[in-house]
Each structure stands twice: as C-alpha cells, then as structure tokens.
C-alpha cells in the first residue's frame, strides 16, 4: 500500500498529550479484572497438582461439598469430550484429564460464598495421585532414556527417529553454508542457554464469569484479547461463541501472557453448576508463576564464520526449545527467523526442535523467541568481534540488513531502519564515555516482525462534533492515546474531542488481541480508515446542503470546504455543525473499517549498555543504558519511550536475575516475587532512549509497532558487557552473581 501522507505538517502526531485513562489510573478508579463484583457473586479456588507428572487416580470432593456455603465443584468430568488439536490442549490445561502434567496443573475447582471459604474447600478436595517419572530441562527431555511424557506428541514435521518428546521440527536456510565457513578466517561455534522467564505482569489473572443452564454467559476479564477468550472458552466448554459475551477490564500488564486462557472457563463451568450465580476467580501470584505464561527455555548451538575485516561469511543455528507439556507452545517458528534477521549473510542454515517437558503451557512473551535467538547469535558475534578486536557497531553496519536486503527468512525488507539505529548508537555520547576498572560495554541489535491481524473499528460522529472510536484491542501501554491522536489528526479536530473506547465482543467484529506490537499499527490504521469514511459522508452532507457535487467538497481543519472557487462560495461547515444537524440530513454519521491488516513494517533496535561487575561478589550493576529503535513514526513519543524502557528493563531482568528454578522433584522452587526477582527501581539506572523515525510505507502515518523489539538486545548486550568487564563470558542466563563469580575465577585460572 502506498503511503498517502507525508511526514511533515502534523498538528497532533508527535505531541505528548495526557492519556485518556490517566486520571482513572492515578485515582484508583480504573477497574481491573479483580475489581468487578456482581450481586449474588460466588468466589472460586483451584486445586492444583503438587507433582510434576502424576496419574490422577481419584478425586473426592465430598468433604468440600459438605461445607455450608460451598456451591459447586468442577472436575474434568464436567467438561465435554471429543476436542482435538489446540482446543484439546486448552481444555487439558484448564483442567487435567487422566494426568497432571506439571507442578501447578489445575485438577479441580470449587465455588463458595466467600474467597476464604473457597480456599478452605479446595484444601478439603482429596486427590489421589500416582507419581510418574518427569523431566523439566530442555536438553534432558530429549536425551536418550528420558521418559516420554505424552505419547504421540509429534506433528507432521518431526522426522523418524527423534525422541518421543520432540513435538515439532523446522529447518530452512539459503546459500552454501560449508563454502561460507571455508571462506572465513575464523569459524567459531558455541552453545548458549536461556532459562524460562515469566511475563511478570503485576496484575494476576482474574475474571468474573456467569453462565446459565441455557449455556449463555457473560464474562468480565483482564485479557489482551477478549475475542480469543470467547473463542477459547466456547471451545473448552462446548458452547457457541455467540452465546458468550466478553467484556475486557483494564489490564494490569500482559506482555503476551494474557493472549490465551488459563482458568477462565472454570468460572463459567462453576457458575453453570451453581445455578447461574456469577463466579469470581482470581489467581494468586504463585498460581500465576506455577501455571500461567511463562516463556520457553532454550538451548542453542550457533556457528559463525567471519573474515578478519568483520565480514560474516556464513551462519548456522540449531535451537532446542521447550514450551511446557503441550505441543506448539515454544516459539521455534519465531526464534529461527529472528536469529539472523539483523544481518545480510550469504549462507545460513536454521534448524530447531521443540520438545515437551513437565512445565506449564508456555505463552507468548514480548517478541516470542527473539530474545533467546539474539542471546545466542549476538553473543557469538560479540565474542568474535572481541577476538578480532573489531568495533561491534562497525561489524553490524558492515553485515547489517538494509533497504532491499533479502531477509534471513525469505521476504525482502522494503524500508527499514536498522542502519539508522546503529549509526545513532555509534554517535551517542554514551558510546564514547571512558570505562573504569571492572566496567564493560555491550552492544547488540534486535528485531521483531511486527504484526497486523484481524481488526475491526467503528467511529461515530457526535452531535457536538466530537468522535467516539470503538476498538477491540485492549490498551496496555497507551494505545487509546495514540489512536486518539491519529483520529484527531485525520479529522482535524482537537485530541480532547476524540474518545477511544475498548468495547466488548458484542460491539464489533472479531479482533485479534493486542499482541505482536499490532494495536497502534492495526487498530490505528483501521481507525484512520473509519475516520476517512466518516469524512467522506460529512463531505456528502455538506455538498447536499450547499447543492453542489460531493466531489467539489474537501475536508480540512475539521470542516467541509468548497474545493476551489468553481465549487461555489460557502463558508466552511464544521464537524460540529454537520453533527448537530445530521439527524435531519440523513441520520447518524459513522465510519467503519475491518481488515486483516497487512503492510507491517519490520522493527529494529540497537542497545548499548555499560555495567560494572564487583569482582568479589559477581554482582553486576547496570551503570547506563541506551535504547535506539526505529518507531516508523512516533505517534505519542512518551509512550514510545515507555515501550523502549519497559522492554529494556524486562530484558535486563532476563539477563541478570530472572529464571524458573525447578527442583529434582520437578516442583517450581521460586513461585513468589521475593524469589522470582524482577528488576526493582534500585536495580536500574535511567534508560536513555533515541527514537529513530523511518516511516513504514504500509501505514497511513508511517507506524511500525514499537512494543516488542526492546526486550531482545538486552540479553546479549548485558552478557557482552559483563565479558568486557571481567573477561568471563556467560553463555547460560541469567548472569546471576554466583555464576559470574565462578566464571571470573575460572577465567583467572
């Protein structure tokens, strides 16, 4: 699609007005998932497996049901049978069938008149388990002799002879890799590992569900995508999607983890069994950590050939990822194409397997797969730069993808901004600050595809000339502000005259969730088209009033104008005047647009981090941090910066602290925030940002998504900075103090 606006001359785009939901959020009025209550509401609690892998022999709920105030218990026997594919996976994860597949797997749920009573009742539900052999590590799960945890998990893609836990296999590439390695001056190969991390949104999953005997229901839920909630709940419960109306609450963070269901169908099933009384279900933090998200763990082999001048001649990766006990949950299909996406390399081979393990069903996490891939590839690039004493930004500029490059995964990049991010990072003052003792600097680039997806938006003109926009993508990071800015810009009216509402499933066509960095891109694109449709209708109304041709009317500055002297001399008719009399000029005026949005613009970023490592303790302090990323066009720069900073902070946490720790018994050992330690304010410096704007030709205002890429470079950048500070290279995240200390000691001897 051709870009039909030019960058210059925007009145509102690029400004930083207050977000429309800001006041509710600073006063405590904003309603999140757990803030809804209904008359007659019950509260639910979930019984979860304490075993990593166990056959469920018997569930006895008689003692729980005997308590006064306990209204319903649901087990797998209450759910329909005969599901297949991902629907069956969702049902299996909602409530275990014959077998509990991970520590924290839901086994039963109970509804009672209070939350405390529901928790008491849950403890009285007696589950008899027969413990089975388990495996939780990605490499161990495909080692000879590892227990096959589910038969028949492999899909069509898995060649004969692989371990029974291998679920998917993928291979692609181009060029002659062996010839490329032969042409290199040095060829290096290493193995890197990343542990699973959790999205770590501060709001635990919460919903209120209500369903009557007729199978018609409603739900209020914190989610990134309420049509997904509707479709998935309907599938798991065997009801028709149209019978479930889902209203999204404000959402307290998601980062990909709220694009699917976990416990939501239980509230509906319990409600139905309890005579249609609404049922609230709120997860505890340990339930969130044990049984939702997390991302995959990965073990990755990388091989690169480089000439002494820094030219990369060939690359090869073999990734192994586990995404829990279910097929299709690890991001191998994203990690592989992300691995070399920042480079233009003549010969590449990509290979990956997905293996299942006794861990929770993984969910998407910000740029799924890309951070792990970047940790492996960018770390090895850095190792080779240091060996050849080459500047890491120069090497990336020399080999970097640019406009017209054929990407490592097939398509050709049209207009991209990787080179611009590298040049801006190189020119930034941070890159020239001298380093002191025990200090090191790391550089890495990152990539995300960005995403369009199914999108439906309606815009209605108000009688007073304001505009109400109905979108279906929940607002996590300020998208109501950015979409409001684009609509106001298009209509030529003040930002304050546009109100953007996230509406329920009954109010719009199907929308994909807010994921893949698509909300401002796709809902924004559709909202602009809806505004243009409303403008065309307003021009027709003005033309009819003036008695001239609609073609002779143009729209500017929020009003219809006669287009040129030949059209007639009429004073401009404002949107307010048109709205005031629309009832007598043909009826309400609205615009509507629905599309599977194409035209996404690829996103690239480059980060520079300086760290200091305490040689006595191995503790790493981040001294300064720089994010440079191409936004396409920054609609609301403050929230673009916020995405960059937030992504960097999550990546720093992944690099330094965060990991899922499983014991020999297969139980998660750190399911609380005290032990699963996300970065706190005193862990981080200010995070400097540079917004590059290389407009995306596929969006009317040049938008690329900005949400995902920022989490990708920190993993390798931090590890490389630590290598610079200590001489010790950490190839297995996180770079926790004991690991760094051991590496320092090993490097000295």
């Amino acid at each position, binding site marked *: 699609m051709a870009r039909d606006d030019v960058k210059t001359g925007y009145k509102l785009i690029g400004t930083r007005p207050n977000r429309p939901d800001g006041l509710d959020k600073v006063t405590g009025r904003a309603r999140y998932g757990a803030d809804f209550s209904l008359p007659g509401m019950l509260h639910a609690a979930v019984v979860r497996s304490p075993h990593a892998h166990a056959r469920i022999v018997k569930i006895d709920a008689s003692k729980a049901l005997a308590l006064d105030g306990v209204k319903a218990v649901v087990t797998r026997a209450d759910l329909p049978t005969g599901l297949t594919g991902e629907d069956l996976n969702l049902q299996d994860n909602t409530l275990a069938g014959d077998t509990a597949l991970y520590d924290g797997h839901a086994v039963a749920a109970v509804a009672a008149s209070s939350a405390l009573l529901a928790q008491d009742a849950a403890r009285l539900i007696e589950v008899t388990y027969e413990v089975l052999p388990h495996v939780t590590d990605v490499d161990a799960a495909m080692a000879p002799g590892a227990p096959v945890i589910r038969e028949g998990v492999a899909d069509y893609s898995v060649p004969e002879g692989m371990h029974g836990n291998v679920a998917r296999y*993928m291979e692609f590439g181009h060029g002659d890799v062996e010839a490329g390695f032969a042409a290199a001056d040095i060829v290096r190969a290493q193995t890197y590992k990343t542990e699973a991390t959790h999205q770590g949104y501060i709001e635990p999953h919460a919903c209120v569900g209500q369903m009557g005997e007729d199978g018609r229901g409603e739900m209020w839920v914190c989610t990134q995508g309420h049509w997904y909630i509707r479709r998935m709940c309907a599938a798991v419960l065997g009801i028709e999607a149209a019978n479930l109306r889902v209203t999204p609450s404000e959402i307290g963070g998601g980062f990909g983890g709220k694009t699917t269901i976990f416990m939501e169908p239980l509230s509906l099933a319990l409600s139905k069994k309890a005579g249609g009384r609404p049922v609230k279900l709120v997860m505890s933090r340990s339930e969130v950590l044990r049984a939702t998200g997390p991302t995959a763990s990965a073990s990755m082999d990388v091989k690169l050939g480089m000439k002494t001048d820094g030219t990369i001649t060939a690359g090869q990766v073999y990734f192994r990822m586990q995404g829990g006990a279910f097929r299709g949950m690890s991001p191998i299909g994203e990690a592989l194409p992300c691995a070399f996406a920042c480079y233009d390399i003549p010969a590449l081979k990509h290979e990956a397997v997905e293996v299942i393990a006794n861990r929770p069903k993984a969910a998407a*996490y910000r740029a799924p797969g890309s951070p792990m891939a970047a940790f492996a590839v960018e770390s090895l690039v850095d190792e080779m730069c240091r060996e050849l004493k080459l500047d890491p930004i120069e090497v990336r500029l020399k080999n970097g993808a640019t406009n017209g490059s*054929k990407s490592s995964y097939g*398509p*050709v990049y049209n207009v991209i901004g990787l080179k611009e991010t590298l040049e801006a990072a190189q020119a930034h003052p941070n890159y020239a600050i001298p380093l002191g003792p025990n200090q090191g600097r790391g550089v890495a680039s990152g990539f995300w595809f960005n*995403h369009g997806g*199914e999108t439906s938006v309606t815009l209605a003109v108000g009688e007073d000339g304001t505009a109400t926009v109905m979108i279906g993508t929940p607002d996590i990071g300020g998208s109501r502000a950015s979409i409001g800015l684009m609509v106001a810009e298009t209509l030529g009216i003040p930002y304050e005259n546009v109100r953007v509402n996230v509406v329920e499933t009954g109010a719009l066509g199907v929308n994909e969730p807010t994921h893949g960095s698509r909300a401002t891109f796709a809902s924004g694109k559709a909202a602009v088209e809806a505004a243009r449709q409303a403008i065309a209708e307003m021009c027709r109304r003005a033309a009819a009033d003036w008695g001239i041709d609609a073609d002779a009317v143009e729209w500017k500055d929020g009003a219809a104008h006669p287009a040129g002297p030949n059209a007639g001399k009429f004073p401009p008719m404002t949107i307010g005047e048109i709205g005031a009399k629309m009832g007598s000029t043909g009826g309400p005026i609205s615009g509507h647009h629905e599309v599977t949005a194409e035209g996404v613009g690829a996103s690239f970023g480059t980060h520079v981090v300086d760290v200091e490592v305490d040689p006595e303790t191995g503790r790493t302090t981040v001294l300064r941090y720089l994010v440079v990323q191409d936004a396409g066009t920054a609609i609301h720069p403050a929230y673009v910066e916020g995405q960059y900073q937030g992504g960097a902070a999550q990546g720093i946490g992944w690099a330094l602290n965060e990991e899922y720790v499983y014991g020999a018994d297969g139980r998660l050992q750190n399911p609380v925030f005290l032990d699963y330690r996300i970065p706190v304010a005193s862990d981080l410096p200010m995070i400097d940002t540079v917004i590059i704007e290389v407009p995306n030709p596929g969006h009317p205002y040049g938008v690329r998504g900005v949400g995902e890429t920022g989490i990708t470079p920190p993993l390798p950048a931090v590890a490389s900075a630590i290598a610079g500070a200590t001489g010790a290279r950490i190839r297995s995240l996180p770079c926790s103090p004991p690991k760094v200390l051991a590496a320092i000691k090993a490097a000295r001897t």
Partner: protein
Amino acid sequence: MARVHLWASLRRFAEGQEVVEVDAATVGQMLDALERAHPGLGPAIKAGLSVAVDGEVIANNRSAPVKPDSEVFLLQRLKGG
C-alpha cells in the same frame, strides 16, 4: 507459473523439491494447488502459513494476488507477545 520455495523441512513432503511451480492467481489458489499436488503438505498448510510474495509478507490474505512470475516463500504463521 509462480515459483513457491519450501522451507527445508517441508521438502520431504514434496519429493524433496526445494521449489514447486504452481499455477495460481491468488495466495489462496496457490495454497490449494500446493496441497492438491502434494497432499503431505496439508498439515503444514492447515496449521497456518504466511507467505512472502515477491518479497512482501502476506500474513493472512488468501485473495492477495500472485503473478505468473512471482517468487513465493512459505513462512510459519507468526505469533506475537
């Protein structure tokens, strides 16, 4: 005939061919023709595919045009956070 490039691990479902020539005017026709010619590709196509036609990513649009001389790459359907 449009030239459709299969990623390496798909080729065993198409007698080892790296490139399959398909007569199709749209992405949808191309995918249907691929599956007719090589039924082994059916599960991959049903699992969800994106394509790149002459360099441009078509995430999910069966009506996107394919020209007789188009170069088409099959891609995994992507998920996002």
